[in-house]
């Protein structure tokens, strides 16, 4: 019986100590956790130092994507305006974030290192259409990498 009382007192002590220990949770929207730079979250399309798009529209990411979440439409780069670093670019680039399984194969397949998965993971929308990220959205990611 005394063993039981001792054990119960010890248990109460353990929980009481927990009152003063650091919390495991954070108040989320104000404070955010630091994610590893290798975290696979939302995609982005990178540009080089001069502001040219790295994507050449080769379609390798589209081919490798196991969830068929990517759609690339390639075209010859327009003459006057230098959007791309070479003579081809992607006119349209869409990622369906509902289908995407964030495996990172597109990132691995990309020959120019244009598509990258950023640590940004706040993926929520009230509309399925909003979950399809178009090229404009991918070019201006909330978190760069």
């Amino acid at each position, binding site marked *: 019986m005394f063993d039981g009382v001792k054990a*119960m007192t010890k*248990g*109460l002590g*353990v*929980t*009481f100590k*927990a*009152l003063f*220990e*650091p*919390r*495991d*949770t*954070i*108040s989320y929207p104000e404070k955010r956790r630091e994610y590893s730079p290798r975290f696979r979250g939302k995609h982005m399309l990178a540009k080089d130092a001069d502001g040219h798009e790295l994507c050449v529209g080769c379609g390798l990411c589209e081919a490798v994507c196991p969830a068929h979440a990517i759609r690339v439409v390639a075209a010859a780069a327009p003459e006057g305006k230098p959007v791309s670093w070479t003579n081809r670019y992607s006119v349209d680039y869409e990622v369906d974030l509902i289908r995407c399984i964030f495996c990172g194969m597109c990132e691995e397949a990309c020959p120019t290192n244009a598509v990258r998965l950023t640590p940004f993971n706040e993926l929520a929308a009230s509309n399925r259409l909003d979950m399809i990220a178009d090229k404009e959205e991918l070019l201006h990611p909330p978190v760069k990498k």
Partner: protein
Amino acid sequence: MISTILLIVKILVLIGILMTGFAYTMLVERRFLGFFQLRLGPNRVGPGGLLQPLADGLKMALKEDLMPTGADPMIYRIAPVLSLFAALSVDAVIPFGAPIHLFGQTINLDIANPSIGLLIAFAFSSLGIYGIVLGGWASQNKYSLLGGIRASAQMISYELAMGLSVLGVLMMAGTANLERIVFAQQARGWFVIPQIVPFVIYFITAIAETNRTPFDLPEAESELVAGYHTEYSGIRFAMYIIAEYINMLTVSGLAVTLFLGGWLGPSFLPPILWFVIKVAILVFVFIWIRATFPRFRYDKLMSFGWKVLLPISFLYFLGTAAFVSGIL
């Protein structure tokens, strides 16, 4: 005339205090449970979560009041009201502070001050079982029924030990009037010192009577979904919850009155504040115990009540009787 108005005002004030007390006990419990579990607890609504009870109440009031088909409509509707009524009425006899003088009137800080206040408190709290048993029965749900049956067995078993544990105080004070029990403690020191064993037993049985962890078998969510209030929703569900928390405040208030000197305390704080502080400490212990211990097994609960608590409190009661009567 004036005394009638005063009485009505006191009743309304008491109900108001109990309702806010319930709301903030619940908030404090949820935050403290968060702290005990290394979380933050609800802190979103209002500064520090202070408006959370309001949001909860609003949500409860706006929810649909469901009744399962096959339920006994009359009893299903009455049961939560009974629970709440029993919980509220016990507090009528608890003195919250020394009588105060205001506008040339002496105001007792209780609704009624009957000579058998302690027994009346027990009578009303014993009626609280009905709400739970009937709610469980009327829901036509096997989990609710099991919860109600467990509640009746558990509360009857623990009421005996509870009654025996306060008899020592009754004998030492020589009265069942709660105010005079407090005055007796003013003269002879808090009864918790000579009556430490009954105090512990009273506290354990109080946890069992209010159906709180580790004695929350009537609503054991791991096996009975939610026990007797499985089918309840909306305002009727809220009534059960209010009753549970007000019961917690009530048994703490009774414990303070009987064992911890009621409103007595050093004079740098007003008496009513001492009462509140003592009740708050006991409520904290309630929450602390909830955060620490796992639930009893049903047969262990019964044998603990009948074979440990009851004999110990009976022996201590006999010892106190012998001591008070002068045999020892």
